[in-house]
Structures are given as structure tokens and as C-alpha cells.
């Protein structure tokens, strides 16, 4: 099948986005129908908790059908004629599609959209925090809502989606030499849960906001204005998307591997995705349950987390972090895996210690399930302190394997410092900082001070932006020639990489100090003695925002006007480089056969 080039100029806006616009329209109608029914049947406000919940469910169905699932999937169920066209060119990315490569790009743009949205909110928050008094917003309610939406979007729609959904969908089948994922329709469906989740979270401020932050701690999260119910609905929807992707990734690795691709030869990114997918499979249902219990507590109302009727607020924290901590590793495992893909390619050096890297991934995945109480050291659960402090400290051992392998691979390499390599190295430094500050939070005596301060804010931004977002950028540049079929602008990429690296560190490093000086999290207003450091942080935060925008400019510009990319610009040995850029519809002209390791350099070719 011929490669379909991306044409941006030719198709009109409405032709390109017809299905997406219909999805929005039907989604809106569904919402009004659902919430209107509640208003009629129960005499409640259509924008109350129940109205929103039912409206959202109806809207979700309308959205998915409108996006093309009606023609692609539902009509054939009933034997109805359907001539659904999955589209070509850029239009493919805005309608129901079953090609894993298209879905991967859909995830990437959706995450980039959520990242820009939530990043813009962070800019507004920093505008408020330039000075101590509440002067930018009229009410702390607005600030608190933005905190909640920024955090929820960044975690549920960017951190766990961008690499896992974007690169995972696009590259796992390619890297194992398969033609697609085993359940392409399920895969197509999975993406359609992302945008409604993003919208539910992002729109909650209009309805009074969700007050309780991205962690949604009960009982605060089950009280308050009806915007709060959108937090549970949005997070639940995004969880469904992760779960469906996890099933497909594991299925791909089990059933779609090319001949000769034994598990001991599996690319490290695929290992990272396997470890991540098992974590999703195990723990997303737990947070899904928690989210449903939260919805029921608000809507019915049940009393799971309501102490006045015998509910236990801390059970929410247990359920949330049972998923929430594995999630941290869902975010970072795939980033580590990308480091170890990029280092041998740009170091022209065989990967040192493949087995240790895989062992590290699996060890972290296993241990990550038994550390969650370290988020709850200050809640008064004294029996749990020592066990969970021990497991938390322990997890740094398999984490260290990744650094051990990376450093050994770089030793006596021949390093080409192209943008992907540069960003991976920066990501390693940033993540190392985040890991190092994690030691202070794992150790109970120091955590009792640092918990819920800006030290924690600094810590997790170092791990998530520093570790995951920098690696996401590295991956975007690394694989850009493959998925866009074009080359990006190297000088601008390097400039923007240094820009975000410097601005990122000057924004987030001082937050450690602010925390130690007594600044707690999630406050719109602070005491005047903290002003200097906060003004500094805000200024650099704005510059960081500009830096991310530069990357976006580079990617969009290069996709449209970039030079055509060769099949294998970096001399990579994994299978995605052994096909054209971009790959044809079913990935490979002939099924590849694997005869050795993907990470050997300087010997006879694999």
C-alpha cells in the first residue's frame, strides 16, 4: 500500500474535522438530553451532581458515535450498510480510526492540547503568586479550581497518556514487527475517552470548580459545588482509556511479535510498556472503583467517605494511592525505557546490561505496588510507617539499575549530541534530582516536615516534568522523522532544549527552599516573607512556558515545511527504523525476521 503523505493545505478545515465537529455536536446534544431528563424526571437542576453525571454519560455516547463509531462499528452490528472511510492525510487524526499509528498521533495531539491547557493554567497560578496578597484572582476559589484542574489534567491526560498512549500505540507494534494491535477497534475506541475526560476536568471551574486538588481527598471532594463531580467523571473516563490501551499493548507483545523476536530480545521501550501496562491493568480498576464511589457519594448520596454516617475518609486516600503510586511509575518507566533506546543509538555503543535494565523495570513495577502509604505518613497511621518507609527506600535499588546501565553504555561511547540525546541527558539530570529529593520524603522523620510543602511540589515536578516531559520531547524529536516523515529543525530544537532546561531548573529548584522556609502547597496567598522567592519562581515559570512553546513551533513548522526524512536517519537498529518514514498502512512490506540484539554496535550487524 502506498504511503499517504500528510497534506495540510489542500483539504478544507471542515472536510478535515467533519467527524470531530459532529462528535462535539452530538456530545453536546447528548449532554443536554441527559441533564434535561434528570431535570424533568427529578425536578433537579440540570447542572447539579446528578444532572451532570447523567448528561455526561449521554454526552459521552453521543461524542463517540459522532466521531465515527456509529458508521465504523455500530451500524455493522445491526447489519446496516456502512461505507465508513477512515480517511487519509490529516483528516485521519480527527475521526474514528483503527490504525495504531493514527491512534498514536491522536493521543499525541490530545496530550499536547491538554499540556498547553494545563500549562496555561499554571501560568495563571504563577501570575497570582508573584505577590503575596490575593490580587490576580477575585477569589481563592478560582485559584483552587485551577490547582485542581492543572494537576488532574497534567497527570491523567498528559503524564500517563502522552508517552504510553502516544508513543506506545505508535511504536509498540512497529518495534515488535507486527502489523497492528490485536484489537484495533478497541484501540480506536480508547482514544475517544481522552477528550471528554479532558473537557470534564477543564470545564469544572465553570460549575464552581473541583476544590480538592488532583488527589480529590474526601470528604472535601464529595462536598461543594457540582463542578466537583466532573473531577470524578473525567478521571474515570481517562482511566478507561488507559485500561483499553494496556490490554492492547500486552496483546501486541504476546501475539504480534516478528519471528525471532524472543522476549530476551524485546526492545527496552516495549519492556517499559509491558511493565506499565501490567500496572495499569492491575491498578486502574482500583482508582476506577474509588472514582465511582466518589460519584455515588455525591449523587446518591452514599456514605463511603462520609465520617458522619460511618464512612472513612482515609479509605479514599488508600484507594487513590493504591493506583496513584504505581501511576508515578507508569509515568516514568516508559521514560526510562526511551532513555535506554536513545543512548545506544546516539552513543554508537552497545547497550551495557540489557538484562539489568529489564530487571530494573520489572523490579520497580513490582515494588511500586507496595509503597503507596508514603503519601500518608502524616495521617496518623503509625503502624504503617516503618514497613512503607522500607519498601519506599528499597525501590531506589531497581531504579538505580537504569542509571547503572545508562552510565555504562555511555562509557567510551561516541556521542552525537543531537536534540533527542541532549534532552535524554537533561532528563536524566532532572530525574536524578527528583529521585534524590525523594529520599527525604521516603524517610519519615524528614517527611513529617516536608510533606505538603513546596518541597513536595518541587520533587514531583522534577520527576514528572524533568523525567517524563523532557523525555517526551526527546521521544518526539527522536521519532519525529518516523511518524511525520519529515526532519525537525535541529538548531531550534537544541536552543529550545537548553531554554527549557535552564528555565525549568530555575523555576523548580527554588521551590525546595520555599517549602523548607514554610510555604505549604495549594495556597493562593502567602505571607510576605516568602515574596522574593515566589516572584523569582513566577518569572522563570513564564520563561519556561515560552520554552515549551518554542518546541511546539518547531514540531508544527517542521511537520509542514520540514525536509523529507529518510527511513533511518539516526542509524537505529530497532525494527521501526527498518521500514519507510512514515511506515505504510500495515507497517512492513515484508514481515521482518529478528536474528540478534537490537543494541549491538561495533560488531557484525544484527
Amino acid at each position: 500500500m502506498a504511503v499517504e503523505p500528510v497534506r495540510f493545505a489542500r483539504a478544507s478545515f471542515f472536510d478535515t474535522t467533519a467527524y470531530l465537529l459532529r462528535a462535539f455536536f452530538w456530545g453536546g446534544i447528548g449532554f443536554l438530553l441527559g441533564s434535561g431528563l434528570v431535570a424533568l424526571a427529578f425536578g433537579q437542576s440540570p447542572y447539579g451532581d446528578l444532572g451532570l453525571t447523567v448528561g455526561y454519560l449521554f454526552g459521552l455516547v453521543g461524542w463517540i458515535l459522532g466521531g465515527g463509531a456509529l458508521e465504523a462499528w455500530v451500524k455493522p452490528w445491526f447489519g446496516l450498510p456502512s461505507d465508513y472511510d477512515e480517511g487519509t492525510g490529516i483528516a485521519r487524526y480527527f475521526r474514528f480510526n483503527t490504525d495504531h499509528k493514527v491512534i498514536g498521533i491522536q493521543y499525541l495531539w490530545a496530550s499536547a492540547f491538554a499540556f498547553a491547557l494545563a500549562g496555561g493554567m499554571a501560568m495563571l497560578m504563577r501570575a497570582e503568586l508573584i505577590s503575596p496578597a490575593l490580587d490576580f484572582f477575585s477569589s481563592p476559589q478560582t485559584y483552587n479550581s485551577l490547582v485542581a484542574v492543572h494537576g488532574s489534567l497534567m497527570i491523567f491526560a498528559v503524564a500517563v497518556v502522552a508517552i504510553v498512549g502516544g508513543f506506545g500505540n505508535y511504536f509498540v507494534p512497529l518495534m515488535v514487527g507486527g502489523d497492528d494491535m490485536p484489537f484495533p477497534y478497541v484501540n480506536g475506541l480508547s482514544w475517544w475517552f481522552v477528550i471528554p475526560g479532558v473537557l470534564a476536568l477543564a470545564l469544572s471551574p465553570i460549575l464552581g470548580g473541583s476544590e480538592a486538588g488532583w488527589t480529590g481527598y474526601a470528604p472535601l471532594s464529595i462536598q461543594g459545588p457540582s463542578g466537583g463531580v466532573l473531577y470524578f467523571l473525567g478521571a474515570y473516563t481517562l482511566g478507561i482509556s488507559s485500561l483499553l490501551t494496556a490490554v492492547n499493548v500486552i496483546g501486541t507483545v504476546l501475539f504480534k511479535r516478528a519471528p525471532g523476536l524472543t522476549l530476551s530480545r524485546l526492545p527496552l521501550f516495549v519492556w517499559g510498556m509491558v511493565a506499565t501496562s501490567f500496572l495499569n491493568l492491575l491498578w486502574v480498576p482500583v482508582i476506577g472503583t474509588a472514582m465511582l464511589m466518589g460519584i455515588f457519594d455525591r449523587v446518591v448520596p452514599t456514605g463511603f467517605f462520609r465520617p458522619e454516617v460511618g464512612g472513612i475518609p482515609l479509605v479514599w486516600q488508600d484507594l487513590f494511592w493504591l493506583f496513584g503510586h504505581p501511576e508515578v511509575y507508569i509515568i516514568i518507566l516508559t521514560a526510562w525505557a526511551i532513555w535506554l533506546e536513545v543512548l545506544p543509538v546516539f552513543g554508537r555503543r552497545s547497550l551495557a546490561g540489557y538484562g539489568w535494565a529489564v530487571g530494573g523495570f520489572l523490579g520497580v513495577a513490582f515494588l511500586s505496588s507496595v509503597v503507596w502509604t508514603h503519601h500518608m505518613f502524616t495521617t496518623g497511621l503509625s503502624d504503617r510507617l516503618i514497613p512503607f518507609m522500607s519498601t519506599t527506600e528499597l525501590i531506589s535499588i531497581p531504579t538505580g539499575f537504569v542509571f547503572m546501565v545508562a552510565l555504562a553504555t555511555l562509557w567510551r561511547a561516541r556521542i552525537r549530541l543531537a536534540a533527542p540525546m541532549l534532552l535524554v541527558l537533561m532528563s536524566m539530570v532532572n530525574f536524578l534530582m527528583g529521585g534524590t529529593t525523594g529520599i527525604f520524603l521516603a524517610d519519615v522523620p524528614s517527611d513529617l516536615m516536608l510533606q505538603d510543602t513546596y518541597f513536595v511540589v518541587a520533587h514531583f515536578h522534577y520527576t514528572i516534568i524533568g523525567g517524563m516531559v523532557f523525555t517526551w520531547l526527546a521521544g518526539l524529536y527522536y521519532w519525529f522523522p518516523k511518524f511525520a516523515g519529515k526532519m525537525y529543525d535541529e538548531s531550534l530544537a537544541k536552543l529550545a532544549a537548553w531554554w527549557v532546561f535552564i528555565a525549568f531548573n530555575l523555576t523548580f529548584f527554588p521551590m525546595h527552599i520555599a517549602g523548607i522556609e514554610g510555604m505549604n502547597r495549594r495556597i493562593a496567598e502567602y505571607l510576605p516573607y516568602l515574596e522574593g522567592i515566589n516572584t523569582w519562581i513566577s518569572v522563570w515559570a513564564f520563561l519556561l512556558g515560552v520554552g515549551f512553546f518554542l518546541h511546539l513551533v518547531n514540531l508544527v513548522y517542521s511537520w509542514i515545511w520540514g525536509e523529507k526524512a529518510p527511513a533511518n536517519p539516526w542509524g537505529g537498529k530497532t525494527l521501526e527504523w527498518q521500514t519507510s518514514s512514515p511506515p505504510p498502512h500495515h507497517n512492513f512490506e515484508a514481515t521482518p525476521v529478528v536474528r540478534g540484539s537490537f543494541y549491538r554496535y561495533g560488531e557484525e550487524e544484527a
Partner: protein
Amino acid sequence: MDRRQARDWRNLALLWVVFGAFSSLVLVPWMIRNYPPVYALEGEVSDEAVFFLLYFAVTGFVLIVVSLVYMVARFRSGGEDDGGVGGRVHPLYVGLWVAISALLNVTFVIYPGVYGLKEIAKSAAVKDPLVVEVTALQWGWKFSYPQLGLTDQEELVLPRGKTAKIVVRSRDVLHSFWVPAFRIKVDAVPGTTNVLYITPTEEGSSEEDPRIRVQCAELCGVGHAWMRAPVRVVSEAAFLAWVEAQGGRRAQVLAREGE
């Protein structure tokens, strides 16, 4: 090992010595000197933990970043081909790496982890502590001294050198009782009671140092940022005067301690 590789190792070892010494002899002591002052015995335990970990964390971070920067600078190529075989990790390297990281982790769990917890818990064994019942609510703090017959005070006043048993409850949602100058905090959880022991070591007040304040540290809604209360640590005599001025009674618990 060829001569070039021996030279690379020697250079790296030299950098480690220089930067390791700089980190542990200059950088970390400087950070510790600039750490904000602590006003409670239990907080000192927390600070000791932070200081001990700083030596390893900062030095470890510096050494790995130095190694990384050295390698990128040293092994940079003009773009020509392969850097040789590689692909294996030396058993000595793996052995040392795993042994050191395991040793550090076990150490951190025992000290300052378990040790620090035991130290903090010692205050719970103090006889006749001054009981302060703290009620957290949206959005404010109430302090009651049941032994002294004082209820619903707006200010937390503590005598220096006397262990206070802070009993924390919430009337509505989650809050967290935190005085940054005392370091350690505990959450106020609706439906349960949490206890924190604080032994103030220095006199001071919120006016003198804004870190001496009760600050809610757990997001609790619109008023979270403002959920603060003034704190004063005073001498025993001044404390008794304050109790009398507030209409409380002179309690056994303080008299015995004064002997």
C-alpha cells in the same frame, strides 16, 4: 584495559575526589548553616534526618552529574562511526553499584528512619504533658487546654521546655496541623483523633518569626491559605500569667514541672 581507558578512569576518579570533597565539605555544610531555625526538640530530630541525608543525596547527585558531564565531554564524537563494542557491564561495577545502593538504603531505613521515629516517640513517654486540644475547622483553629480550664483560644501559647500533647481533631474536612518552626506535622482527620508531641526549645512568636505559626497544610477548601493561627512560645512564668489572664486555673501539671 588500554592506556586511554586507564587515563579516562584516572580523570574521572580525580573529578570525584574534587567534587565529592567540595560537596561534602563546602556545599552541604553551607546548606545546613542556612537551614531555618528550629524551635522544638522533635523538630531537631527531623532536621538531623534532613542533614544526614543531605550529605549522601547532594554528594551522590553531584558525583553522578559530574560523571555524566565528563563522559559527554570526553566521549563526544564528530559524527563518525562506532565507539566500539561495549555491551557488557563489568561484574565489579555491577557488584559495587548494587552493594552501595543496597547499603545506603538499609542505612537510611535504620538511621535516620527508624531511629528518628523512636526519638520522636520518646516525647510520648513524658509524664504529665501539657494537653492542648486542637480543633481544626473550615477555616480556623481552636485551642483548648483542658487541664487549665481554658477553651477555644485563638492563639497557641506554649511554655518553653514543657512537652505538649497536641490532640488534633477536625470538625469537617481534612486539615493538617503544622508549625513550620516545629517541623513535624499531623493531619486532622474527621472521625479520628491524632496526637503530636511538641517540646518547644526556644522562646519566640509569630511576630518575630513568621515560621512560628500554625498553618493548615492539607487543602481544605476556599479558606485554606488563610487558615493560620498565631503561636507564642514563652517562659513558664509568662505562660502562667497568660493562663490567669485568660481566666484559667493553675494546674498540677505545671506546678510539678516547675519544681
